Each structure stands twice: as structure tokens, then as C-alpha cells.
């Protein structure tokens, strides 16, 4: 116990004296929390639409006015012909072209209406398909309105009510903020302990430790504990900012969040130490860490939904500890879930913590 205390004292002194680390611990959560929520929106609220109106009827005008009035679109004018609209699409000035054919209104009530031509730039698949859906929705609504005025069938979409739970205003920032907290923890708890240990290897100081009777467990714990504490502090800073700047407070209990965070931080720093132990140089350690952090960020449901991945990829994600924490954070922070409701996630994360920290201790070899 005495050994662990002196080793901890040493680690904390070193972190404090590092010219850049303490700044990163404070600046990173602040900078990310203040800036990133403003850019991370995939919500397509600005689909640039041009209309080629070859019909010039009351229906086509109604469609145009609906598009103009919608908050989803920014209307870029009536194009005179399809050609010019298409070149505007190529250059990125517009995203979707609506071509209303001549005779659209006349044929609308017939068995075979003349179809409206929709062209979207689908390089960005989300934006392309969502934009298209919005346009269809708006057009159907416009036509439905006219038909209803004429006493014809109203479209059935009118009898569906939509209710958004947990985030009624569909605020994308609220969706991203828990994810950002996870990213900050991931960066701090994966990279820094790994770098820290390999730098001792490269400078030779670890050899001086290896020749002492220090146990592997105390040495590893002394490396890990500071990052557990820092992780929890950093999370608290981020949560405070979420409340002050974005008015977002956890719907669920703080206890559930901190329990999840503690398990996560313990897991990830254990992982960092294990990677460091098997690396010879800092460069190796950082490349391997980089590899995993990229995978964790892009395949744990942090930035893109897990369900949109193919089944095999979804199965693979069960191996990634961040997956569980992402679910815990969103469920507790936004939906107010209790620990009991998502206990599987907690259990899996706890298992990961045990596995990675055992690995971290076992891969540390004092004698080669």
C-alpha cells in the first residue's frame, strides 16, 4: 500500500509538471463542448431546391409556395429549363431539382398521372435521400391540400400524428453532447496513459523500476488511477458546460452516469496501458491507439447510428466497450433510463473493465 502511494505521488507530480498535459485536460473539454455542438448536425435543414415548372398551373404554384414556406428548404428560384438546373446541381449550387411536367394538373386525377421528376445529388447519401423524402412529403401535402379543398380524398398522411419523445424539438445538439463527452474521455483515457508508459520505456526509467521489487499491479494501478480521476473531473467539466451553455441536464440520475463513466474510464485506460505494454516505441503505441480510437469513434454509434451498419458490423461492435457507454450515456442523459433498464450495458462494460485491466497487468513484463 505504501508503495502504491509513493508511485501515485510520483505520477501526479509528473502530470502536474508536464508543460502541456494539464492544459489539455482543461482546454479540450471546454473547446470541444463550446464549438463542436454547433457543427455536428446532420439534420438536413437547408436543402437547396430549384423548381422547373413546365406546367404553370395552380397545383404547380401551390407546390412552389409550399417549398418556399418550408423550413427544410432554401428555395433557389424557378429555373427556366432542366439543363441550366442540372448544371447548377453539378456545381453544388442546388441539391434537388423538382421538374413539374406540362399537363401535370390535368392528369392528376386520372388513373395514370404524369409523374413529377425529382433529381437529387446523392454524393452525400443521407442528404440526397432525406432531401428527396422531404420534397415528396411537401409535394404530397400541397396536392392533398388542393384535393381537400376540392372535396376529394384527403391524403392519409393527415391522419397520422407524430410524437417525439425525450427530445421534442429534435435538437441535434442534445443528441451530440453526450457523444462529445465520450469522445473527450476516449481521447484522454486511451492515448495519454499509453504515451505515458511508452515514454518511460523509451527513456529507460521503467528499467530502474523493473529492477525494484515493485509489484506489477501497484505499478499499473499507479499509472491508471490518475487518469480515472482526471476522466471523472473532465466529464464533470463537460456536464457543467452542457448545462450552462446548452441548458442540457441529465434526465436520469447522476449516479447512473458516473457509474457508467467510471466503468468506461477504467476500461479504456486499461486498454491504453495494455497497448503501451506491447509496443516498443511511442510511434507504435500511438499508431495502434489511433487505429482503435478511429474505430471506436466511427463504429460505436457515437456519430452514426449503429443500426445503419450491416449485420456483421453490428455484431463486431459488441467487442467495442464504447458501444455500451454510448448507449448508457444517451439513455440516461436524454431518456432518463435507470440502471435497471439498461443493466446489460453496465454488465458488459464491467466485464470489459475486468478483461482490459487484467490484460494491462499481465502484459507488463518486468523480466524478459
Amino acid at each position: 500500500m505504501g508503495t502504491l502511494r509513493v508511485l501515485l505521488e510520483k505520477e501526479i507530480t509528473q502530470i502536474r509538471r508536464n508543460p502541456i498535459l494539464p492544459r489539455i485536460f482543461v482546454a479540450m473539454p471546454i473547446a470541444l463542448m463550446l464549438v463542436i455542438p454547433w457543427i455536428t448536425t446532420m439534420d438536413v435543414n437547408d436543402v437547396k431546391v430549384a423548381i422547373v415548372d413546365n406546367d404553370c398551373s395552380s397545383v404547380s404554384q401551390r407546390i412552389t409556395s409550399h417549398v418556399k414556406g418550408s423550413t427544410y428548404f432554401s428555395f433557389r428560384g424557378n429555373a427556366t429549363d432542366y439543363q441550366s438546373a442540372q448544371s447548377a446541381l453539378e456545381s453544388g449550387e442546388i441539391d434537388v431539382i423538382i421538374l413539374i411536367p406540362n399537363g401535370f394538373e390535368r392528369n392528376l386525377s386520372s388513373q395514370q398521372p404524369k409523374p413529377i421528376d425529382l433529381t437529387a445529388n446523392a454524393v452525400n447519401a443521407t442528404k440526397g435521400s432525406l432531401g428527396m423524402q422531404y420534397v415528396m412529403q411537401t409535394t404530397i401535402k400541397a396536392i392533398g391540400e388542393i384535393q381537400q379543398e376540392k372535396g376529394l380524398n384527403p391524403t392519409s398522411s393527415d391522419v397520422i400524428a407524430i410524437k417525439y419523445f425525450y427530445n421534442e424539438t429534435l435538437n441535434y445538439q442534445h443528441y451530440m453532447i453526450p457523444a462529445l463527452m465520450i469522445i473527450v474521455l476516449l481521447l484522454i483515457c486511451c492515448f495519454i496513459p499509453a504515451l505515458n508508459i511508452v515514454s518511460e520505456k523509451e527513456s529507460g526509467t521503467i528499467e530502474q523500476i523493473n529492477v525494484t521489487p515493485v509489484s506489477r499491479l501497484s505499478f499499473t494501478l499507479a499509472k491508471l488511477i490518475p487518469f480515472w480521476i482526471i476522466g471523472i473531473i473532465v466529464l464533470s467539466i463537460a456536464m457543467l458546460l452542457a448545462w450552462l451553455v446548452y441548458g442540457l441536464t441529465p434526465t436520469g440520475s447522476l449516479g447512473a452516469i458516473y457509474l457508467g463513466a467510471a466503468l468506461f474510464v477504467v476500461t479504456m485506460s486499461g486498454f491504453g496501458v495494455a497497448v503501451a505494454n506491447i509496443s516498443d516505441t511511442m510511434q507504435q503505441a500511438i499508431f495502434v491507439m489511433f487505429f482503435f480510437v478511429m474505430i471506436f469513434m466511427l463504429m460505436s454509434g457515437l456519430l452514426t447510428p449503429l443500426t445503419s451498419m450491416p449485420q456483421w458490423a453490428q455484431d463486431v461492435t459488441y467487442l467495442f466497450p464504447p458501444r455500451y457507454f454510448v448507449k448508457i450515456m444517451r439513455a440516461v442523459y436524454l431518456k432518463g433510463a435507470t440502471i435497471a433498464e439498461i443493466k446489460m450495458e453496465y454488465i458488459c462494460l464491467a466485464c470489459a473493465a475486468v478483461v482490459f485491466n487484467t490484460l494491462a497487468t499481465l502484459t507488463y513484463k518486468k523480466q524478459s
Partner: protein
Amino acid sequence: MNEPIIHVENLCKKFDDFTAVNQISFDVSRGEIFGFLGANGAGKTTAMRMLCGLSFPTSGMGTVAGFNIRTEGEKIKSHIGYMSQRFSLYDDLTVFENMKLYAGIYGLSRQQTLQSIDEKLEQLQFASEKNTLVGALPLGWKQKVAFSVATLHRPEIVFLDEPTGGVDPITRRQFWELIYNAAANGTTIFVTTHYMDEAEYCSRVSIMVDGKIEALDSPKKLKEQFSVQSMDEVFRTLARRAKRTE
């Protein structure tokens, strides 16, 4: 006291197909200053690392302070001190913090820690630099601090791997005074060096060539055996036989 503190028999270490240490055998008795000489790449450091429990022998056996180097590495570690050729204290900790860290690691009580740190600083006449970051010290001083750290817990034996490399002659002298002091207090010294004048200070000297021990005796007897005037000439005669290049 008759039993040797280090006993090594047919010790080997191979890295893939390279035999760094080839069947060496020797004994070191308590209180000796044992010089472990050899050209660069002769296998000194590898052999020393096996004795300290940092590296497993490929074959052969050995005991240090009565413990088997293959199976009882961790037990050996509480009985020895070690100072590597690379300076390996923490640059970003002060002299005092480094000493306190290692005192704590070796399980010294708070009282003992403060007392032995004071003693060491006194001995080095270094009390004024107690709170200086180690990284800011000149190399000679760093090495002296490293030696103090290695002997803080009064180990039975201290392993020194080229402790005076790159250090000026005056500091080297002071360093050897520290070594003599420790030896006078009963600590066994196991030291590697490239300086042949330092070899003359040792009670006994072994010379390694290409992973084997080619000569082992007191400096005086070695000079007689090779009929030369200095250890330097003994070394040159033997080193010329080396086939390995660095």
C-alpha cells in the same frame, strides 16, 4: 560469509540465432568490488540484466544473494541496487522526490526515508540542490544522485553498468570514492567500465570477449599472467581476439 553472493554456472543468453552471453561461470564474494570488463557488444550488459532479474537466461543457472535468477527474480530485486548505463531517474522530479520515490518503493518507513536521504545528501554535499529538478543537473551530478538512489535502501549488492561513462575525471574520482565508501560498509559492488584505470581499483576483474569470460583474477595477477605493465595492455591483448563487431 564464505558463500559467494553471486554464483553463476554456464549462463547463456540467446537472441534468435545470436548468442550474446555464452556459457559464463564465475563467483563473486561478499564485500568485493568486482570489475566486469569487455568491449562494446561483448555481452556485459546482457549478463548483468540476467543477474538483476530483468532478463531470463536461455540456459545455465545462477544465484544472487542466495536467490535463483531464473525463478526468484522478484526476491533478488529487494536485495540489490542497480544503476544502468542510461541515466534513468526521472528528469521531471527533483532530487528529493526521486530519492523519496525509491525509498518508498523499497519499503523504507517515513523515518528511515528522511534519515537516509539526509545522509546521502550530506555525503554528496548536495543538500542545497535537494529541490532541483534532476533534468537540470549536469551529467556527473546526475550519476552521483543515481548511485545514491541505488544504494538508498542499503542493498547487499549494487550493480553498476558503466556508471562513469561521459563523466569528467574529477567527478569520476569522486564517484569511485562513493563506491569505496559503500564497499567499506559491506556492500558488494559489481561494476562494468571501459576505463582501465578504474579496473585497477577493483578487487577482482573479469574480461569478456564475444560473450565468453576470457580472464578472471585480481588486476595484479592478470598483469603478471600476461606479463604487461597495465590493465590497459591486458585488455588490448584480449580484445584483439574479438571477432564480433558492434
